[in-house]
């Protein structure tokens, strides 16, 4: 009798396992992260990911380079930041129904132009003012898009321990 009960329980457990495996739609050996033999899927990061990948680190690097008066690096960071805005606006032209290119234009075009001048002139005070204006533009855009709680600031420390921001002497 005991043997029968054990065999019933084991049979039930096996049936449950088979059912769960079948319902999950993948074989037991397959990785939970997908099929390694599948075609590469198009990568469509959404606005939050684009901001974290392309905008926020470049904004920080620009600020750190300007603070160190490393003008070649600041120029490079500004170019990268501008390119980040272009890529983000192309990838997500409308966000929550709002026109992203127009919002970016209103928020950052003018400060970016001023930053460009400041970097070319190697003029630290104008750089600081324009960078502050750029940061305010970021926050104004966050407020317009109901994300006022995402507050960007002038970096007070480097988040890049593997990068030198001081210019080569």
């Amino acid at each position, binding site marked *: 009798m*005991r043997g029968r*009960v054990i065999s019933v329980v084991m049979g039930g457990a096996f049936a449950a396992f088979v059912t769960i495996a079948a319902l999950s739609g993948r074989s037991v050996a397959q990785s939970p992260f997908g099929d390694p033999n599948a075609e590469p899927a198009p990568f469509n990061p959404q606005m939050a990911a684009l901001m974290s990948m392309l905008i926020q680190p470049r904004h920080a690097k620009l600020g750190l380079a300007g603070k160190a008066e490393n003008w070649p690096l600041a120029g490079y960071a500004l170019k990268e930041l501008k390119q980040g805005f272009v890529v983000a606006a192309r990838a997500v032209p409308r966000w929550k*129904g*709002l*026109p992203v290119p127009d919002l970016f234009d209103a928020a950052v075009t*003018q400060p970016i132009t001023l930053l460009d001048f400041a970097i070319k002139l190697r003029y630290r005070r104008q750089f600081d003012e324009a960078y502050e204006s750029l940061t*305010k533009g970021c926050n104004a855009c966050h407020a*317009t898009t109901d994300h006022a709680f995402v507050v960007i600031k002038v970096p007070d420390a480097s988040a890049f321990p593997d990068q030198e921001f001081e210019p080569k002497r």
Partner: protein
Amino acid sequence: MSSQLTGRGFAATLFEDRMKILIWHCGRIAGVVLAMTCSLSIAVRAGGAGFGDDDDNSEEEGPSYFGFVRDTGGATVPDAKVTVGIKNRGGVVTRTDALGTYKVPGFGKDVDPKDVEVACDKLGYKQLRVVRRSSPSTDPKIPIETECTLQRI
């Protein structure tokens, strides 16, 4: 078989009874879980038990209204007064934010967007023109965009 159980026989019977109870309980729980899963999936498929926002009135509202207020040089104008009005029925007054944009939620579905007019104003300026942007999309989540231009007096 004797009704007098030996120690080992009693233990076996007890084990058998407990296993029966366990299997009965498992069956009952499995039944309840299966029934809940089926009913939930049917309800979700039918749209009867969504998990969306309770505040989402998009089906009862028309499109929202959004736009920039700019000066003649193209710069955005913060803190401008914007009136979004329905012909002969009054309207809503708001102000542009730091980015020079305004947003007004949708009116009722009975309001034809063609009857909605946007006007802007700011001390030291006069309204020069109002341009409604046409959108190829019919997505109701995309607001009707109207740009208002102010000229310095």
